[in-house]
């Protein structure tokens, strides 16, 4: 991934729609925030008016200055300052609440989008990198959503207010400072994007680091038990120093704007105003109080200028993140649902028609695969590792689309089906079982609250997990934790069976699903497996099934056999017929054991 290089011209067109999309649903809070800002500006402008009046009252006539008025002014000054603080707190509340609501929505949208992206996308990205892209990048947009617009508007408003007051006090000063403000604005505009591409590089370095760490934490045992610790530390050192280098370089460039330009502009303006005030006083055209006022107001320009600097710095960093968010949003969803295939819940017929497939423009892994399976039949898939068995199951579940040909269920191309329809119709158990740090119920239902507990417990019992379940202290509410030893790999695989059981699909795909079970346990669940396949049991409901196996026992009861070699079908037919034909590979396999046929 290359860091995007946003150009200043395109940035507004990219930022505005995003702000609009995520801020408009919370109009109420946005309005309150705007109100707090305007009130804040007004209160800030009021302060110096009071002190200037105070000075003039005192200076006009030292001896007879009415003490009552002074006390009143001092009281008012306290009131205004306290009110300004309260308004500031309200502003902080509304802006953070707006910011969180907007970024949380964006997080959800990104998560939803990423979940819809194909496995090719996910295979290239670590979970750690996606954490950074969905949460890290979005978090750095928080300030843009919560403050950028409002602070820039607020600061702009304050500057305009100050200039207006100065105009009233003295046309000369007002005009001079307005000219100056215009010039300053032009300088700010030209320099504010200095750091954007550099910050994009920093964000990428952070994402790389997060991805690296997440993967290594997931593989701690592999690293430690194989003495890879120092090697990993070497890699970590390189990533760390890369981040440091990029970070310091970005700051060095960006701070030219944030520190040097904004402050330089302010100092020049302040000196200009002070000089003008002194000159006017010497000309006898201004009171000492009004010079004080002039200096005070000009000094007040510092904070909005700094605000603008800070906000644009945040924007610089955010633009880098925004580019990455945009890039993620623009990644096309390759696997999208069709209009609907109208399958019922009954077992479907499968047909592969001249299917070819390659992962990510790599070498082809399937060549011209064609076969049919009637409703309710089971197919045993045999072949050496890497021969394409798993790929066939992935195409059946539509984790990928074929590069050539078509996969059909009941004559309808998988691409015609809605995704939810397809997922409900096809149940897959893989060798790699993924567990969540959630309770047993959620791990079984994958967060589907509609399934009743009784069915969950029944499914566990059916699969021989009853004794295991009985040991769980909080029943279905027991939290499953990674590495806590609550579930052996074999038990986890049984749990994966239970997940599919509960969803009751018409087509079941087992990808080496029983490989981690010892033969004794496998025999125990053989009955259950037959029930899952609809072969036995009271609720006899035939299902179509594809079973990938590397043991003959696993395919002992299938209807048909298919043997793959290097992505091609080398034998396919009824199991009984193949077994009876002494020249078939399958028969040889039965006679002499798997090794000689498949070697």
């Amino acid at each position, binding site marked *: 991934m290359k860091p995007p290089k946003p150009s200043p011209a395109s940035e507004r067109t990219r930022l505005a729609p995003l702000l609009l999309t995520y801020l408009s649903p919370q109009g109420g809070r946005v309005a309150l925030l705007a109100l707090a800002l305007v009130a804040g500006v007004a209160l800030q402008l009021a302060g110096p008016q009071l002190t200037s009046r105070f000075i003039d009252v005192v200076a006009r006539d030292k001896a007879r200055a009415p003490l009552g008025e002074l006390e009143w002014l001092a009281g008012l000054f306290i009131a205004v300052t306290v009110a300004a603080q309260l308004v500031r707190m309200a502003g902080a509340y509304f802006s953070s609440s707006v910011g969180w609501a907007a970024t949380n929505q964006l997080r959800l949208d990104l998560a939803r989008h990423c979940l819809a992206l194909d496995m090719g996308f996910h295979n290239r990205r670590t979970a750690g990198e996606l954490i950074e892209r969905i949460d890290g990048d979005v978090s750095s947009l928080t300030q843009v959503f919560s403050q950028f617009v409002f602070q820039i508007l607020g600061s702009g408003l304050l500057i305009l207010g100050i200039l207006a007051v100065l105009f009233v006090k003295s046309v000369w000063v007002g005009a001079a400072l307005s000219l100056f403000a215009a010039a300053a604005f032009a300088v700010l505009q030209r320099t504010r994007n200095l750091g954007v591409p550099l910050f994009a590089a920093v964000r990428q370095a952070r994402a790389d680091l997060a991805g690296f760490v997440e993967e290594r934490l997931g593989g701690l045992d592999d690293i430690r038990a194989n003495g890879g610790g120092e090697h990993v*530390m070497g890699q970590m050192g390189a990533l760390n120093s890369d981040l440091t280098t990029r970070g310091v370089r970005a700051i060095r460039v960006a701070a030219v704007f944030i520190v040097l330009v904004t402050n330089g502009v302010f100092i020049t303006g302040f000196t200009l105003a002070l000089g003008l005030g002194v000159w006017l006083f010497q000309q006898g055209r201004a009171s000492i109080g009004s010079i004080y006022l002039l200096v005070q107001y000009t000094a007040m320009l510092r904070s909005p200028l700094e605000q603008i600097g800070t906000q644009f710095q945040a924007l610089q960093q955010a633009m880098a993140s925004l580019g990455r968010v945009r890039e993620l949003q623009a990644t096309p969803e390759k696997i999208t649902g069709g209009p609907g295939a109208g399958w019922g819940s009954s077992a479907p017929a499968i047909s592969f028609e001249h299917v070819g497939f390659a992962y990510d423009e790599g070498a082809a892994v399937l060549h011209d695969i064609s076969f049919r399976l009637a409703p309710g039949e089971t197919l045993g898939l045999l072949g050496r590792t890497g021969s394409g068995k798993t790929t066939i199951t992935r195409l059946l579940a539509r984790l990928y689309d074929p590069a050539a040909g078509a996969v059909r269920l009941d004559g309808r191309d998988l691409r015609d089906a809605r995704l939810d329809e397809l997922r409900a119709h096809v149940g897959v158990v893989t060798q790699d079982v993924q567990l969540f740090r959630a309770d047993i119920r959620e791990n079984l239902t994958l967060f589907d609250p509609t399934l009743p507990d009784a069915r969950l417990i029944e499914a566990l019992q059916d699969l021989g997990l009853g004794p295991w379940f009985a040991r769980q202290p909080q029943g279905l509410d027991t939290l499953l934790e990674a590495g806590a030893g609550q579930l052996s790999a074999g038990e986890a695989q049984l749990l994966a069976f239970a997940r599919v059981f509960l969803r009751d699909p018409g087509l079941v795909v087992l990808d080496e699903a029983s490989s981690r079970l010892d033969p004794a346990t496998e025999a125990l669940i053989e009955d259950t497996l037959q029930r899952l396949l609809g072969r036995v049991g009271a609720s006899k409901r035939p299902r179509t099934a594809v079973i990938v196996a590397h043991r003959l026992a696993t395919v002992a009861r299938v209807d048909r056999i298919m043997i793959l070699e290097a992505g091609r079908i080398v034998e396919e037919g009824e199991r009984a017929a193949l077994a009876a034909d002494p020249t078939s590979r399958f028969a040889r396999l039965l006679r002499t054991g798997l090794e000689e046929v498949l070697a």
Partner: protein
Amino acid sequence: MRAITWRHAWGIIAARPWPFFASLSGYVVFFCLQLAPGLITRRIFDGLSGQAPAGFNVWTLIALMLALELGRVGTLYVAGVIFNVVSYSGEALLKGNMLRWLVTAPGPRRLPGSTGEAVSRFRDDPLETVGLTTILIVSPQIVTGLVGFAIMLAINATIALVVVPPVVATVVVTYLLTRNIQRYRKAAREATARVTGYIGEVFGAVQALKLAGAEGRVVGRLAELNEQRRAASIRDLMFSTGLGSFGANLAALGSGCVLLLAAQAMRAGAFTVGDFTLFASYLALASAIPAMVGQILAVERQSRVSIDRMRALADGAPPLALVARPPKVAPAPAATRADGLEVLSVRGLTRRHPGSERGIEGVDLTLRRGGFTVVTGPVGAGKTTLVRALIGLIPRDAGEIAWNGAPVADPASFLVPPRCAYTAQQPRLFSETLRQNVLMGADAAGLDHAIELAVFEDDVAGFEQGLETRVGTRGVTLSGGQLQRAAATRMFVRGTDLVIFDDLSSALDVATEQQLWRRLFAQDRSTCLAISHRREALRRADEILVLDEGRVVARGDAAALLVGCALFQRIWGEDQ
């Protein structure tokens, strides 16, 4: 407690002392120069109102102020940029030490949550902790405030003293509320970690979720976690904002009193307009003191939360391990053949998983040089637990391990290359090239041999880019069997005396598995411990341990067990 936070701050500084102190000096200059405009403006105003003898020309004063201010900003830029070297290095130091502890320290490791949750401890907590040094570097502001206060005191003591009570009150209140700051911060950090942890889990299991059509429900759950985080974060923010606001309000009260007192003094002629302008600008400086003290207290509390979270990840590390200087690259321990494996004996190995009574109980095991030992047994019998406790990946509750008769205290750091290597049941590869994965820092000399031992050569030859193939996240672009043989290659390339497989064959077809055993035992040196229930392995085993419910129920070779052990007969018999 507090000391430990500051000792971490010092550790971060000590790693880059020169940049830190150079930057600090810059900030001291910057903050001291903050006093100049007030003094100069006072001279200007007194000069204009004729209340002071005209010394410098007004225009000279203005020019002087311009020069000082520009110099001040230049200093800030340089000091700020230098400081970033310190903060980025500090972040790197904390992250590096956390990972170092996890991958190299003795003893078993266990993450306090999911890996995604741990990522937040790597991403956010170091950043928060480095905030300690940021607050230190801007702390000279307090000195400026004090000097400003002294100047005001010299001009008019009575008026100056008015600002003291609000300052003291603010500091006291902030101090009293620090516990709450810590509580709110902790809640916010935990809510964030739950979000990152969940995102990590979701995308680690994305295939399973897609297959189950659970995408929508997963997003719904994320929405709940998002909402909890929003509430916790706003509470955290509003509490510290409120505290700051309280201080500012007290300071405003002080300023109002200053106005009144100043009015009286001005009427008495003891207070000039210039003095007034100076007070007006220095009051802001003085009220920065409580704000600063409050911030230091708050940041200390907030960092403590982060330090605790990082130390929980580096469980068992010495107190200051997070800021320890990284060791100079240690020379790899020379593979001393003097203590090459003759016999590894295990007596009474016991491990009970906390919270459930499962585990293993009193397992005895002897591995002799060149021997092949297989552990077998039904699902959940404790086979994996046995192997992991043996090599120290999980703690053992009891049991002695001896290498050639010498006791092994910490198997996690002893049973590693060049003595022992291990392939997990579900091995993890990383998203880099195949070569990087299998070598993982090892010498490439034995690579071809290792690939051959693992029966991986045809696959590697079949990859378009051979060993330079990128294997994708966690090795997903490889098939299950390729992944396991890549992991086996990684184990073999280390050339260890002892190799340990946990269920290597679960993703291998029978022919490949046979080939692997044949090649492995063709070289006489290998000692091997494997978990398997496949006949190919059982048949070749010198000794088989049959495990059931955590205990060894039978041992012997296949022939003997087929006669004497019903459980073994079932395991053997079903596999045909």
